[in-house]
């Protein structure tokens, strides 16, 4: 489903990714491990079209991202859920409104929005907090709202960049369990992390990056 062929990316001549070749199947749960600056976030940015590689090619569902017109990038992002370390929730909008945003931008009807948002919030156990504002939630709850927002429109893949970076080990387990259940429903999940707690709980494929290069590919049987 996701294929990278000899992908390289530079920021002001500084190498962020070097000759990365990867193949991720539909429904896989992949951990991208590596220290800060290894190129994990860059790789995720390339997958949502936020950056373009200087060299190589990226295919998502057989479609080359480098051939996408700027107007097609939003369409790609509607198929991809993104979860970030700092949650990126809108503080002045309710939990419901935050989660409904991806549906709203796609032009979903009011009935559809209500149904899907309620489902997404129920799946992360926060349907009773739909009228609260993000600052009134705990960090774990905020991350769950973020996951609900990322999955509300049934994406083909979920990209998470250090999703447990602000969470304690207990909340980390909760979030990983959520990811596992989302993955069990068929969504491809790629989690970029340097948190060993995540690695301990996810016995799946681990791709380790260092200084922009893939240094190991471990296939762990679940």
């Amino acid at each position, binding site marked *: 489903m996701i294929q990278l062929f000899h992908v390289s990316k530079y920021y002001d001549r500084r190498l962020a990714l070097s000759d990365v070749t990867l193949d991720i199947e539909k429904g896989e749960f992949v951990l991208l491990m590596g220290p800060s600056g290894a190129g994990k976030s860059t790789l995720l940015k390339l997958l*949502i079209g*936020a950056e373009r590689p200087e060299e190589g090619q990226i295919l998502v569902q057989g479609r080359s991202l480098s051939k996408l017109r*700027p*107007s097609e990038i*939003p*369409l*790609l*992002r*509607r198929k991809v859920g*993104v979860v970030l370390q700092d949650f*990126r929730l*809108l503080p*002045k909008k309710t939990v419901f409104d935050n989660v409904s*945003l*991806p549906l*709203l*931008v*796609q*032009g*979903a*009807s*009011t009935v559809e*929005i209500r149904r899907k948002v309620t489902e997404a919030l129920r799946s992360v156990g926060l349907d009773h907090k739909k009228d609260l504002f993000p600052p009134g939630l705990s960090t774990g709850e905020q991350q769950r709202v973020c996951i609900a*927002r990322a999955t509300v429109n049934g994406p083909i893949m979920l990209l998470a960049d250090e999703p447990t970076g602000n969470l304690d080990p207990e909340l980390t387990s909760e979030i990983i369990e959520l990811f596992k259940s989302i993955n069990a429903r068929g969504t491809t999940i790629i989690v970029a992390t340097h948190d060993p707690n995540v690695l301990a709980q996810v016995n799946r494929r681990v791709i380790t990056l260092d200084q922009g290069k893939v240094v190991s590919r471990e296939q762990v049987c679940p």
Partner: protein
Amino acid sequence: MSVRRLLYLLREAVANVLTNRTTTVVAVATTAFTFACVGVFLLLYVNLRAMASSLEQDIQVMVYLQDDLTEQTRGEIELQLKADRAVGALTFVSKERALADFQSQFPAESHLLQGLGRNPLPASFVVTLAVESRSSEAMRRWANRAQAIPGVAQVQYNQEWVEALAGIVRYIEVAAIIVGIILSAASVTIIANTIRLALYSRREEIEILGLIGASSTFIRVPYLLEGAALGLLGSALSLVILKAGFELFRHEIRSASRFLGVDTLLTFFPVEMCVVLVCVGLFLGCAGSFLSLLRFGEGRA
């Protein structure tokens, strides 16, 4: 576009305005005063133009005839003038009638003519030109043409007045265009800066919207609406300021007895022009927003 989506965009535009309340008020007020400055020139132009065209309507061209003309030649000249499309109306004033008019208008000076022994005043045609021939240029062309008719001694009209007024109107027109362009650019800049502040204060939200697949149109519409609203409010407020200033000026003119009657000649913009001015404000507001969005998209905001 679904109703919910439309409502969201409108809500966001209102939220933008409310978030930056002070900046919005300052932008509307500054835009209003800027538009009002342009409006003063426009008002001056509209009134002078109206005055010029009213004067042009009153102006009559005097076609003086040579003294030794036969009745037949006079008749031919009359026919020639009547056949001219530029001539709206024509009245013949005989030598005797001219003398009688002079004596009734200037009774104190009538003895001057009596001393001459004969009537020195020429016969003439008083010509009122057709509406389309009343501009100073058309009047000049017609006068030259009439002057060339055999038997015509002289053609006179109040050329200086007409040309001076036309000149002033032209200057005001040019000044209004120059001031209009400069101040419109200033308004666009003011609105662009306000929108830039709004974009800056909500850049995180814009990033999030981009991340979840919002199209650039969806992201931009609230800011375009905000710019349009600022332009619209600014231009509407400028009309209120202008109307208040105009009424105050008219009141002052009315109070000053030496300008008796002048106040009735003064006119404010007609409703259609007010609508056009508000639409121009709205357009300039959109242009300001567009400029900021362009710079924001290029990462220069």
